[in-house]
């Protein structure tokens, strides 16, 4: 059995027939070739596969592609607009928030979700917001600094607007 789905990913609409058991992360990676979203565990615990699904950060390994039918999805590939980095991406670059880079796309999506909901987070709030994302390289400190940097940048941008 296959089911038809239609999803809008990074602004582009796709229609496919998929087996119901296909996980959203496999659909994004293997069908749409958006390989920036990674897979790091089998148990919904590492957050490497985090994407925005209708404005909510979700673990795309724990969503069936069929469940995403009709949804708007933003993956890491959709974060920079016209070559301009998202402030969170900038923060990760500026503050060395990544080493091997494998957890980074998921970290960036989770961090962006935080700043949407809480533009001025404390250190503890930042740590809580990325609790669902494992990083084995950085020890998280530079990631915290990256998010703080992004928060400042976004506030600055908001003030300028």
């Amino acid at each position, binding site marked *: 059995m296959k089911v038809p789905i239609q999803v809008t990913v990074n602004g582009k609409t796709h229609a496919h027939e998929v087996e119901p058991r296909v996980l959203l992360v496999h659909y994004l990676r293997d069908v749409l070739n958006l390989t920036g979203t990674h897979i790091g565990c089998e148990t919904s615990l590492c957050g490497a596969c985090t994407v925005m699904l209708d404005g909510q950060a979700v673990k795309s390994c724990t969503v069936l592609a069929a469940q995403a039918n009709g949804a708007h999805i933003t993956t890491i590939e959709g974060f920079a607009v016209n070559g301009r980095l998202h402030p969170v991406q900038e923060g990760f670059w500026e503050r060395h928030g990544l080493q091997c880079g494998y957890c980074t796309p998921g970290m960036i999506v989770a961090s962006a979700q935080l700043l949407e909901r809480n533009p001025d987070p404390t250190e503890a709030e930042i740590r809580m917001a990325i609790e669902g994302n494992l*990083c084995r390289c950085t020890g998280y400190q530079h990631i915290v600094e990256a998010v703080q940097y992004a928060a400042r940048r976004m506030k600055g941008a908001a003030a300028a607007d």
Partner: protein
Amino acid sequence: MATKYVGNRVKRTEDPRLIQGLGHYVDDIKLPDTLHVAFVRSIYGHARITGVDASAAAKAPGVVAVYTGKDIGKIGGVPCASDLPEMKKPEFLVLASNKALFVGHAIAAVVATDRYLAKDAADMIQVDYEELPAVTEEVKAAAGAPYVHEQFGTNIAYKLTAGEGDIAAAFRSSDKVIKQRILNQRLAPIAMEPRGVLARYYPGEQELTLWSSTQIPHLMRTQVALMLGMPENRLRVITPEVGGGFGSKLNVYAEEALLGWISMQLGQPVKWIESRRENFQSTIHGRAQLGDLEIGIRKDGTVTGLRYNVFADMGAYYQLLTPAIPTLTGLMLSGSYKIPAIQINVTAVFTNKMSTDAYRGAGRPEATYVVERAMDLVAAELGMDPVEVRRKNFPAPNEFPFKTATGLFYDSGDYVLALEKALKNADYKKLGEEQKKARAAGRLVGIGVSTYVEICALGPSAALPAGGWESATVRIEPTGTVTVLTGASPHGQGQETSFAQIAGDELGVSIEAVTVIHGDTSIVQYGIGTFGSRATAVGGTAVFVALQRLKEKASKLAAHLMGVDPATVKFADGRFTSGAKSMAIQEVALHAHLAKSLPEGMEPGLSATYFFEPKNFTFPFGTHICIAEVDKDTGEITLQRYIAVDDCGRVINPLLVDGQVQGGIVQALGQAFYEHVVYDENGQLLTGTLMDYALPRATNCPWMELDRTETPSPVNPLGVKGVGEAGTIGATPCLVNAVIDALAPLGVRHLDMPLKPETLWRIISGNSARSA
């Protein structure tokens, strides 16, 4: 040399692609007609395989082939590069056929048109097992049957004694010999990207290409070529982005050879991406040493001798460096101290578990943990301040190079300097006062100290199984861009940036003009790889020396082109100058390639290659201090502060060094408090997923207050020492020491890791016998 880049916090050049999801890890590489492989792995720790029925799987949708142990006769065993006297050497075939010796031991490989169908078919394979008694405990394993490898009639893989000085005399002359059993528990490296291999064979060209998530592309090429019996120059290994390694990818695995072989059988690309469960079962583990420490002391705190009798758990087989890890432990048992007599007695044993091998630190964290615990045991015994015990036993700065009783020459160091800086940053005196107050109020607050030294820049070839040098080629292309080829293929360390910094400064060019290429054996000259905190000290030095050679040639050519005496030519800011005449290095490069006017005997082109062989290891050091509080009700630990002063020699990029130290400290936090690979008595792996194996999360980590001293290494012209493992090595004992100090008023002197809340609660509530 102008240092526009070196020593500065330069943002990484590899980041733009990674933060946009545009990098390519193995699974991101798509080749047409790729087939997918799924493995059937043993569900027993020890079992005879009495039958494998793949008939249903072979007929399943999408299945192209199924291979079992009887099909792969010509593939050589998984290689082990280290060899010790009288070492037992089991053959580790890429698929098990008669017996399965650990949970996760590969038994069959299914090849199908997609990964879903491969997994479905793998589940259809019926393996009949006859369970055999498993060997899971080191001490019991050493004592006798049952045996992991029947043919040896023993589980002892090897025994080894090392060290210098008369240890018996040292103990006799001591006022006291303190004894303690110490466990370095088994850990899983858990790189966030699991392993993965993509193999493609072109029958016409007879060329096999392997994309693999590895730390050692060239060594893997050599070993896989040997395993497959194919010419090494027909095998190409490409290492794309590597999502972390920590030693787990410093290896050659069964799957790497097997995937290559399957691709050769089928003439189609084949891919295998390790699942996290497979990663727990069949990627190397680390540590797993259980030992008895004896340390002789005088009343004033002077250490007279140290002996460590240790059981090292090899697992069922050797991977690349398995037997060598305890030898590194032996080398580092002097810590940062003058200890006149040291002896290590290793009993390496086989067990029905996955192999242990190099996990971040590889034998050195084990040693440092033992030594730094020992220092606290001495302090507790004598009622001394742990800092004073350490200070008392440091070698003085003028004693360097300092020779240890383990046979090493520490290159340079000023241990007091780092210690003093850390004490000052922590305000150690005030910490002590605060602790007193907290204790008076009934709180369990502890201060942990560790003053570590580590061995880096691995290393002189004589001391390594497979070459300890590193290679670099630098080129200036006709259009003036700079290409650096390094054999030290990174997996997150940022060599694309740090090596570009070196090249940028040396050539006076912008780092944007420099591209660092690595991880492709057909493009890059032979290299060793990134591990053992060696990339900058050995690989970076190779780059540096190659740059000097390139500049020498360019300088001669510039003199020729400008028509001046070569002796008058000076190089600065990217230009060769002699008197009023001046030429940019890019211009020189173009002329080198056009080759219309070259000095007599000069080859065209502008490139230089250098293979750097270090004469010694380097020995970074530092002091870590932390403050921990234990919840009296639950046994849960809170870290209040973490202060580190590390000396990794000269620093190329402080941003990257901080990142390495922070990541290392948090991995130590994992070992100290959370992580433990647990097998039950039947060899079942109980911590088989991240549901049960706890890695530190952002909410578990303290804010780390970092600082540095800079004592240049005399071993290489850059003066760098290495920093990849420092955090892990220095922090593990520091964290444990703090918690044990917190419980010291309850009479606790030692506890084994991980310091689980339940363990601490049992002590606090008097529910268990205290560890002496």
